[in-house]
């Protein structure tokens, strides 16, 4: 096993989770819980791939993926903001709707043949940093580099800018924000949509960069849900979200590679000699998500801070409290 290769690929696959998780962090910081990430990622991946095939331009695909998922998220926005429905159920509906749409319209795409992918390149100076340069800055997809910038930018936006502060106020105490003339519904629609677009970006990153192609619902294989879990683990902090996403990406990659070598450390590799044990390896990311959630939830319980106070609570003007 080559650690550089594993980490290199792990960073790439973690980028997908990063986009989705940061998007969810933004939506949830504004008070909207969107459990439909899986559906939005699928529609993003499908639209992006289909556009890229039809027009031969991956950038067009990227835009299409983001637009499709952003539009889909607005359905959730309308139902949970204006109609004040239960956001858990609405998010589930979004998963169904997104999955259904992408399966219906994505039929036949898997046999569509080769497609132009998003470019990969090596960053000139940074790639010469020993060890790290090979992992982070050598022959990575452009989306990976976008990912490097996104998390710190999101952190800065949330904590150091006026619109970021307004977003936090809307997620914590919408009545207070409203009384100060902030358009609560508008802010919530905005970040629901941005969250959706980032989920679409995550999907497009899968189908056009990280593991290119359309494999119907296996394209995302539950990564949307993992991102929802990571959001809680990250305590709604984009930097923690990034760390979690990359760690998860590396773990997923490591599991794939674990079946290859005949020897693990000093012992015979049981996963090599007993190929069916691979199914247990495949459980690890999911079990790990649960473990991460338990840790995150215990931490949240102990500190009783972090969760946006109005998360999942519809806002109506004239109602007391949150």
């Amino acid at each position, binding site marked *: 096993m080559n650690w550089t290769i594993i980490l290199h690929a792990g960073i790439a696959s973690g980028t997908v989770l990063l986009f989705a998780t940061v998007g969810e962090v933004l939506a949830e910081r504004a008070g909207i819980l969107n459990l439909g990430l899986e559906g939005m990622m699928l529609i993003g991946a499908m639209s992006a791939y289909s556009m890229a095939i039809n027009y031969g331009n991956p950038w067009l695909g990227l835009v299409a993926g983001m637009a499709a998922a952003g539009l889909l998220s607005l359905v959730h926005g309308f139902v949970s903001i204006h109609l004040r429905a239960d956001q858990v159920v609405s998010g589930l509906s979004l998963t169904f709707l997104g999955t259904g749409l992408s399966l219906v319209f994505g039929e036949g795409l898997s046999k569509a043949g080769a497609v132009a992918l998003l470019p990969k390149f090596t960053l000139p100076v940074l790639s010469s940093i020993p060890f790290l340069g090979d992992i982070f800055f050598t022959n990575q997809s452009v989306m990976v580099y976008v990912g490097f910038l996104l998390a710190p930018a999101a952190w800065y936006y949330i904590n150091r800018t006026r619109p970021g502060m307004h977003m936090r106020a809307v997620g914590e105490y919408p009545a207070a924000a409203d009384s100060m003339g902030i358009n609560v519904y508008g802010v919530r629609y905005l970040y629901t949509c941005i969250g959706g677009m980032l989920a679409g970006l995550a999907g497009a990153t899968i189908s056009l960069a990280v593991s290119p192609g359309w494999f119907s619902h296996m394209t995302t294989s539950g990564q949307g849900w993992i991102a*929802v879990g990571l959001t809680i683990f990250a305590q709604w902090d984009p930097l923690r979200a990034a760390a979690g996403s990359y760690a998860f990406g590396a773990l997923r990659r490591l599991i794939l590679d674990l079946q290859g070598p005949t020897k693990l450390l000093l012992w015979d590799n049981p996963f090599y000699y007993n190929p*069916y044990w691979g199914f247990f390896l495949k459980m690890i990311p999911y079990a790990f998500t649960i473990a991460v959630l338990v840790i995150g939830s215990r931490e949240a319980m102990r500190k009783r801070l972090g969760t946006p106070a109005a998360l999942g609570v519809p806002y109506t003007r004239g109602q007391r409290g949150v």
Partner: protein
Amino acid sequence: MATTERIDARRRPALPFKIQVEPRMEVPRWLPITVSVAAVLIALVLGAFALRLAGEPHPFKAFAAIAKELFGSWGGITDVLVQATPLILVGLACSVAFSMKLWNIGAEGQFFIGAFAASAIVLTPVLSAETPGWIFIPVMMIAGVVGGALWGFVPGYLKAKFNVNEVITTLMMNYIAIEWNNYFIFGVWSEGGFQMSPRFPRTAWLPRLADYAREIPEFSGLTLHLGLLFGPMAAVIVWWILYRSKWGYEIRLAGDNPRAARYAGTNITRNMILVMMLSGALAGLAGMAQIGGVVRRMQGSISSGYGFTGIIIAWLAKLNPLIVVVVSILFGALILAGREIGRSGISMLIQGIILFALIASEFLLRNRVRITRVREA
């Protein structure tokens, strides 16, 4: 405190009317049913529209043809009922959990583990093939129930003790269940390298109508099996628990206002775990019925997303266990229709639209919307 608001008029006073929304004091009896039926119809129309976009030339004609095929013959009707069998149980599983606002979306995984546990009785083998059916079937049922309950216990325990979001844990448990079953289907129980176990011995089969074709010739080819009876029986029991028992009262109380439930002295932690276990048990029983009554062997493709369809069934039935039975039959037909059309995503798409239409319509049940003319100022 009373609330009124305007959705539109505030920002665009130019409109000649304004939309006013007020909370409704009493809900007319006819409204909920009308709204639910409307939700299904809207979903079918939108689904047809999507099909049209995706290249199906005459979606409504296709719907009609399928409906005729499904409900026009005994064969079709029994096929629908066979589909409805697991749906009833899974719908009940979701109803129980949702009554306590526990979002168990892991009925799919609990279904798989129920199927696994029942198969383990046959394939390990715990009971030999010569065991008579009246012992074999109940033991398999118990195994399915216990397996599902165990799969429900884990997220229930994590939610109750550490406040871990059950939506994600139940979902992750689905994936784990699938990989777990795959290990046995591909590896341990694989028959001759195929991805399925050997066929169960006859004593482990839930009897089908077709099995009696020799005595009653009309039954030949009818796939309806004994498992169909599990659903309605379970529905009555669940109904009694939720609306007549003390425990059900505690569940509904905790579902509506957990702080009030604590104040009333109920043990929320224990109830959360028990409800998740009951929910898992029902889904596990569905898995057992599917294994014993339909495929009669262990294999991968035993569910058409039943666990997820159960969510919508529970919601459409307003969590009422008796209505779950009726709604499940409708959805059994929907799933078969999806297969007939031959597009894997279409039934999921329609289900998504139904669920959206339903939760959106809650707004109409809770509020009165009035459109009035704006007086000239």
